[in-house]
């Protein structure tokens, strides 16, 4: 192993490299969830969207030969699933949490059903920027490979913050999330705003799924996702409903997830599973410290039912 040649220095390098590979799905899904929640609704079904996205991206990339078409297909599928979620939730007395879980089961089941023939073939993968080419050390080169899609995600996080804070659409979205009565009084259709937000959120989650199947791990199988879609909900709370903080949070979650394998590569394998739950413990601890029984979380959209 190359990591062993570097000794313990290989660990932080492997963590950074691992974080850069593991974070992008977290980033896209959490940006999608952030957008949805800003409009005042929770979509717990993004895990299903993510896996459907991964499957359709792989399938389209395999059939068309272009990974970017695959990404687009994944986004399109996500868009449809998000719109379905929003449409069902805007009916009276329909619970968005329950519909989310149901759509998650539906999405995962459908992806496994349709994805059966895709386990064998190899699809073209997404390209990456090689930022480490100046170095002769191959672990460093591997660590500094940044996928093009991840770069897009980073730009998107800043763009989304600007959109939410500085534009008319962002303001509308926040009004719908903070006080649907105000939005209605201003003559806007809250259900439609939420429909658009949830559908766009689904698009992003689908794109996050395409990263899983087209870059890292880079194949389609049924154990592809390790719950990133479900984690997104916690991650958005951790990030206090701010897209840029979603970026930092995904990097943190990614590196926490990469710590176990990195230590394993230098021969420290004790506590592997305990390390892998580090992000969850961290989120819970932060929620415990910052929540209060008497007020809602700072930055939380007031219309959010589930995160009351």
């Amino acid at each position, binding site marked *: 192993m190359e990591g062993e040649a570097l000794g313990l220095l290989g660990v932080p390098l492997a963590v950074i490299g691992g974080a850069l590979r593991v974070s992008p799905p977290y980033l896209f899904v959490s940006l999608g969830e952030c957008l949805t929640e800003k409009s005042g609704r929770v979509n717990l079904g993004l895990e*299903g969207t993510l896996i459907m996205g991964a499957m359709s991206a792989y399938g389209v990339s395999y059939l068309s030969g272009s990974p970017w078409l695959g990404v687009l297909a994944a986004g399109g599928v996500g868009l449809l699933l998000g719109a379905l979620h929003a449409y*069902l939730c805007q*009916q*009276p*007395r*329909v*619970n968005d*949490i*329950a*519909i989310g*879980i*149901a*759509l998650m*089961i*539906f*999405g*995962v*089941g*459908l992806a*496994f*059903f349709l994805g*059966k023939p895709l386990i064998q073939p190899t699809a073209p993968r997404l390209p990456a920027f090689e930022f480490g080419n100046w170095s002769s050390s191959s672990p460093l080169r591997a660590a500094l490979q940044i996928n093009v899609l991840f770069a897009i995600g980073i730009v998107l996080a800043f763009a989304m913050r600007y959109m939410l804070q500085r534009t008319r659409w962002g303001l509308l979205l926040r009004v719908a999330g903070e006080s649907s009565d105000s939005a209605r009084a201003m003559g806007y259709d809250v259900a439609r705003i939420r429909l658009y937000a949830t559908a766009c959120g689904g698009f992003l989650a689908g794109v996050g799924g395409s990263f899983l199947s087209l870059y890292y791990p880079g194949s389609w199988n049924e154990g592809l996702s390790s*719950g990133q879609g*479900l*984690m997104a*909900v*916690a991650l958005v*709370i951790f990030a206090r409903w701010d897209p840029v903080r979603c970026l930092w949070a995904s990097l943190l979650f990614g590196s926490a997830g990469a710590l176990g394998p990195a230590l394993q590569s230098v021969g420290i394998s*004790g*506590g*592997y*599973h*305990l390390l*892998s*739950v580090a992000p*969850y*413990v961290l*989120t*819970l601890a932060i*929620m*415990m410290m910052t*929540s*209060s*029984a*008497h*007020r809602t979380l700072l930055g939380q959209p007031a219309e959010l039912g*589930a*995160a*009351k």
Partner: protein
Amino acid sequence: MSQPASRLDFEAVLVPLAAIVVSLALFGVFILCNGVSASSVYYEMYRGAFGTWFSTQNSLTRAAPLMLTALCTALPAHLGLVVIGGEGALVLGALASVVAAHLLASFGPWVVLIGMGLTGAAVGALWLGMVGALRTLRGVNETISSLLMNYIAIGVFKQIVEGPMRDPASLNKPSTLPIGDANMLGSLPGMDVHWGLVYGVVACLFSYVLMRRTVFGFSARMVGGNVRAAQLSGISVTKRVIATCMLAGAAGGLAGMTEVAAIHGTANASLICGYGYAGILVAFLARQNPLAVIPVALLLGGISASGGLLQRSLSLPDATVNVLQGILFVVILASETFYGRWKRAPAATVPAPAASVVAEVA
């Protein structure tokens, strides 16, 4: 019955039935799109779920843990909480029951089984009790914390099963030492279904009586209806929330214990098979009514049991049943919106045949 059934009862049967018919139709269309005859799929599913004595027993075996994990969500729902931590309570309850089995091994099977049940339930109760405590004392959202705690529970479970408690003989699939054949939970007389089914049914009946017929249940539902009103009548919201969450966790822990003591005989990764998450859906489909949990769990147990037969006889992927489950859940949950559409009719009339109700609305 001397009293005429109310419109509400009528709706409570008609809407879910219509939803099931619609989902089966949608699923049929999906199957047709894949070039397989829908009727043969329905037939095989019926055969795989309840068509033979063997498959019925298989369905019942799968329904048993679902009844218990459904209570993890259904009980706190009476207080207006959405707890989705059944999976965590199940795996930790299972692990704790194995520890108890090894500690009590010298006392004979009865002591071992009772000890396993009590320990499993206690650990599950503590686990979800924490969710309730965090909610009411620190204001931490219970849905998110119970979700996070599922992942933490699974990590802790794997760490212990693959580390300190690993049976050196289990090479490919790390497991704990088996609890021993003599200590296994037996089958119900005359069938191949274990006693866990009885635990599940009894737990559901107990929860129903507790929530509908006791002072505790009344005060808990009052908390769910209006926290301020409950506080003003002197009810301790904190106590009700923590106690209900602990009961929910105990049910989940018991589910883990029965899976160990009746199916696996040891704790390993096979326990993490999504019974906790399926339980959430059972609870929502049963509209959080502990009594309705029993038939819904049977239905879901049947659907999951039929997966194998579909795979073998029609060479459909095993995920076919997941697609059906997904469609079923989405449609049934969406059908919630149709409750109360016939409200204008007088409340205490004998339900009219379906056709005339439709005419009345139109």
